[in-house]
Structures are given as structure tokens and as C-alpha cells.
């Protein structure tokens, strides 16, 4: 039986995201729905999150008007579906510093946040470059950085330098430098607490957007199973492919155990429910004694 329950919780979505953003080289292949989600991990006396989404007050109108991101719901409303309140969350693992992952820290007043030190130091470096190189500086909100200063002062921001095993028992942080961003990381939940684990789950952040990145096109005739990296990378697609191999190896090449939170087809692979608000909860696994949140 598992130590931790894991849910992927949708908090907003955009109906029309360009496919080339999520799959490298998929030019002129139109658009698909891109859900915005975070992951909730519960067990061993902890309530943890992987990323915290964005703050509607800061970006909601802009995102809706300019980019078609709709249906945002607050963490209080979203987490309630799993019987949890934002105040219950004691740890947050920030996969990278983009506003839609690190943009709502104030909603979690009792949490300690973990982020790679390199993510911060490389943003500082990138911001020192001339404006003509601004491509490398996108998606960072100065407000998030200043809220990070406050967290650091309060002792609630931990800058991790590389991998960190057992941040809480059975949960590991893995650095994935120069991939989607300079200091990205992913989270492994070893649900049997063993190393190597026979029951591991990888929460991939934006290192994996969709199943095609894992070589799973969904087309039965496609037998090649070649990893195709995500389209958006401040680092390199080579590093993304190498990281994908690391993640897949850690779960015994069982691709279902690498969980891409932006993947709409999670609902086809895991028990899921779509609420009256039109947002999905996908139940990845349940800890001993935990009651399902997606079955009646």
C-alpha cells in the first residue's frame, strides 16, 4: 500500500494552446487544450504541493484577454475537492520560477517552499543581459521574486543546490538544469520508501508537458516510442531528452508513472472527475486508508 496519495488538480485552462509549444517541432499542427494544474501529495503527516499556480489578481485579466486562459479557481476552492485547505499545506516544491508555477505563494501561509538556487541565480544573470536577449527572461514576475524575498526572510524559502533525497521520507527532488529553465527540477515520490523503488511516481513539472514527450503519441501504429522534448526550453532540448530518460529509468520505463500536469489525457489514464466548475481532479494513487476523491 502506498505511503502517499497524489492528485493532479486543474485550476484553469486554455482551450487553444499551440501544439508546437508542448511538442518540439510540431509546427503548423494547430492547437489543443492545455490544462493548468498543480499536484497535491498527502501522507506521512504531510500535505505537500508541487507548484502553486498563479494569482488571478495579478494576471487573470491579462491572461484571459490576451491568451484565452479561462476558468481560474482559487486554491481554496480547488483543494477543497480533496478535503484540504491551503493552510494545511506544509511544503511546496517549486519546479521552476515561471509565474504559472510560482505565482501564488501567498495563498499558502504555512508552507515552506523549495526551489533550486540555480533557478534564482540564473534569473539574476539573465536579467543582467541586454534587452535584445530578453527571450531568456520571459514569464518571470518581479512580484513573485519579491514575495520570494519575504519567504526567505521568514525562513520559508529553501534554495536547494542540486538533488535532495528524502526532503520528507520517500520524496526526492531532482535537479534538471538547463532544460525548460536554467534551474528546473522534478519530484519523485517513492511510495514504498525504498531505493530503488518499485512504486515510484515522477511529478515532472514542465519538463514533460504531454505524453508525446514520453514517446507516447497515442497512435497504435506508432511503434517507435521516441522521446520528443517540449517546445519551450530556455536550456536545451538535448538536456530535456536526457532528463526524460532519467525520469523513465527511475520508474522502470513505465511511462504512466511519469505524470505531466499539463496533459489533458491524464483523465484517460487515471480515475478522474470533472466538477461543476469544469475543472478536473485526477487521482494518481491513494495512500493506505485514504478515501477516493473521484469515485462516488
Amino acid at each position, binding site marked *: 500500500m502506498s505511503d502517499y496519495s497524489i492528485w493532479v488538480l486543474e485550476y484553469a485552462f486554455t482551450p487553444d494552446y*499551440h*501544439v508546437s509549444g508542448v511538442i518540439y517541432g510540431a509546427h503548423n499542427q494547430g492547437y489543443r487544450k492545455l490544462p493548468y494544474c498543480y499536484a497535491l501529495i498527502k501522507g506521512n503527516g504531510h500535505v505537500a504541493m508541487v507548484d502553486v499556480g498563479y494569482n488571478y489578481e495579478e494576471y487573470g485579466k491579462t491572461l484571459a484577454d490576451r491568451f484565452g*486562459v479561462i476558468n481560474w479557481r482559487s486554491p481554496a476552492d480547488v483543494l477543497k475537492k480533496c478535503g484540504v485547505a491551503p493552510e494545511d499545506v506544509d511544503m511546496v516544491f517549486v519546479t521552476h520560477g515561471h509565474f*504559472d508555477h510560482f505565482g501564488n505563494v501567498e495563498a499558502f501561509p504555512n508552507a515552506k517552499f523549495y526551489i533550486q538556487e540555480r533557478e534564482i*541565480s540564473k534569473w539574476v*544573470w539573465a536579467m*543582467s543581459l541586454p*534587452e535584445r536577449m530578453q527571450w531568456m527572461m520571459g514569464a518571470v514576475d518581479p512580484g513573485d521574486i*519579491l514575495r520570494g524575498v519575504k519567504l*526567505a526572510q521568514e525562513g520559508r524559502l529553501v534554495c536547494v543546490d542540486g538533488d535532495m533525497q528524502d526532503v520528507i521520507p520517500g520524496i526526492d527532488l531532482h535537479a534538471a538544469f538547463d532544460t525548460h529553465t536554467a534551474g528546473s527540477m522534478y519530484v519523485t515520490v517513492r511510495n514504498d520508501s525504498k531505493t530503488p523503488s518499485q512504486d515510484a511516481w515522477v511529478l515532472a513539472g514542465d519538463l514533460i508537458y504531454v505524453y508525446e514527450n514520453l514517446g507516447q503519441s497515442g497512435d497504435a501504429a506508432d511503434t517507435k516510442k521516441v522521446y520528443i522534448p517540449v517546445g519551450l526550453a530556455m536550456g536545451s532540448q538535448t538536456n530535456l531528452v536526457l532528463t526524460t530518460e532519467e525520469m523513465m529509468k527511475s520508474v522502470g520505463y513505465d511511462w504512466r508513472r511519469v505524470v505531466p500536469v499539463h496533459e489533458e489525457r491524464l483523465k484517460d489514464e487515471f480515475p478522474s472527475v470533472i466538477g461543476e466548475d469544469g475543472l478536473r481532479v485526477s487521482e494518481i494513487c491513494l495512500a493506505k486508508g485514504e478515501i477516493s476523491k473521484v469515485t462516488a
Partner: protein
Amino acid sequence: MTPLDEDVVAYSLAVSPCYQAIRRLIVQFGGILILQSSAAGGSTLDAAISSVSAETLDELTESLAAVRPPFRLRGRHLQLQRCVEDLKYVGQYTRSAKLAVRADAAMITAIRSRLDHALQLLKTAEHQAAGLTVVDFTQSCACHPFQEICPQTPKISRA
């Protein structure tokens, strides 16, 4: 979208490099404070601090002074100039007193407060239609980058 007046467009084009430089400096200083507060390694912190020079701030002051805002945008322009004053204050401390900053939580609070103030001023001077925005969404999970960068480009048909 409502067409912008020519003087607004001209001003926005002229001031945009300053606006973006202020935005970047706020992130740089904020990042430095995070690294200091979280006791990051010495070389990482030194590299971060040295990425902001006094000349950068002086040049920014000069560039901003050289831009002439239309009368109705003078208030916005003044906000940007006040931003730079805040950043100069922050720059002095992060460069010359980094060890003290590491040790003195009250000083970090004072510096953070100036950065918060600068960010609020920058937001006040935001003009989305003219491209002066605090957050650049072009590398995020929310963008249609090509249309955003080249808005005249026709959107391709959907699959």
C-alpha cells in the same frame, strides 16, 4: 483594440528600454536578496551582486532624463524616475554592504520595502496596449508566441 495616439506610441517606444531595464533590475535585486537571505554559496552570491553595476543605474537615470513625455504622460514618467531612485538606494546596499545585509534582517526588510515600492510604481506606469508590461508572457505556458511577437501575422487554421 483602440488605436493609440501617435505621441503615446512615440513615447512608449522611447521609454520602453528604460521600463524593461527597471523591471529587470527589480528581479536582479530581488534575486540577490533571496540568495543572501537563504545563505547561498559565496561565488553564486558574488556573481549575482556583480551583475548589477553602479554604471547601469547611472545610465538608466540619463536615458530616462533624455525621454520627453507628452504632457498627459508626465505622471507616468515621474513614476519611472522615482523607481530609479528606489533602485539606486537598493544598489548602494547590495554592493557596498553585502556582509551587513546578510546579517541584518532589518536592513533586508528596508531594502525589500524599497523594491516593493519600485514595483508598485512600475505597475502604475504599465501600459499594456503600448507594450509596457511588468510580466513578459512570451515564454510561458500561456502564450501564443508568434501572434504575440508579430500580431499582424494571420493565425493558422486549427487542426
